[in-house]
């Protein structure tokens, strides 16, 4: 079943590649490539397509950075506390 869907999808893709004019979804692409308005819309569409990925990637990157920094600080605080208690014990203060 999956193979059948895959074949249909590949056929549609091949047809779209061979007939690009009929597969333009944009309502202002009627003039074809090379037109200034079309180029403007294409550039804008590309920019707006990429931006959400950049924004979400930045947010995820910020979260990962904050998590790693917090983990590093926590590990450092724990090791310092253990060293502190070990020193107290060696001095016979406990």
């Amino acid at each position, binding site marked *: 079943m999956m193979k059948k869907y895959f074949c249909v999808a590949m056929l549609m893709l091949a047809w779209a590649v061979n007939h690009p004019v009929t597969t333009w979804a944009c309502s202002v692409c009627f003039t074809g490539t090379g037109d200034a308005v079309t180029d*403007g819309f294409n550039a804008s569409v590309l920019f707006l397509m990429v931006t959400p990925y*950049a*924004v979400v990637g930045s947010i995820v990157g910020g979260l990962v950075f904050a998590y790693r920094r917090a983990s590093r600080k926590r590990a450092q605080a724990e090791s310092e506390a*253990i060293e502190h208690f070990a020193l107290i014990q060696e001095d016979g203060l*406990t």
Partner: protein
Amino acid sequence: MARDSTARKLDETPPLRGVKRRSFGGGKPPPPVRPHVPFASNLWLAVLMLLGAEAMFFAGLIGAFLVFRIANPVWPPPFQPRLPIEVTAVNTVILLASAFTIRLGLRAVQRGDRSRLVHLLSWTAAAGAIFLTIQGFEWFRLLHFGLTLSSSIYGGLFYTIIGCHALHVFGALIWLLIVWQKARAGKYTRQNYVGLQTCSMYWVFVVGLWPLLYGLVYLY
């Protein structure tokens, strides 16, 4: 009875990270009790989401600008005044310097240097105010030369994009002044400075956005 079972539960708790718990026969002391601290505060997360939304808002404006800019080979359109590139370049440097000072202020509070923090926040606010003043002055000149919101697509795009950014700088400046007042009152410490941190994030975002807008609207 209840106390016995609680004591048994505590006694059967596995040791934390390989540290031996204190026993009656000796051994190392228990690790210090510390509360669970989340890796990011709620305010920090909220500002991160806000910045994502702001980025998308400006992306929409930039997308609209790209359509009109690329669709018009002659840009700026004929009979429209030219934008003040040199003055705005100086203004850009001033705004970029303000991002530098606020980051230095964040480092100062991490070291516990309150007076330096207040000093650096004052410089940041002054730079933001100078930026807005110069922008406002240039806007008056452009209006005088005939570039209005309805004069052409050029004017409409300019005032919409640059105006939205100026509004954001104004909002960030008000936030910064509140943070400055709190810093003067000693509200920020080495352990608790999330208010300053989020304000710094927003300010750096607004400042970082400006060179992109300057390059697109003034130079492209």
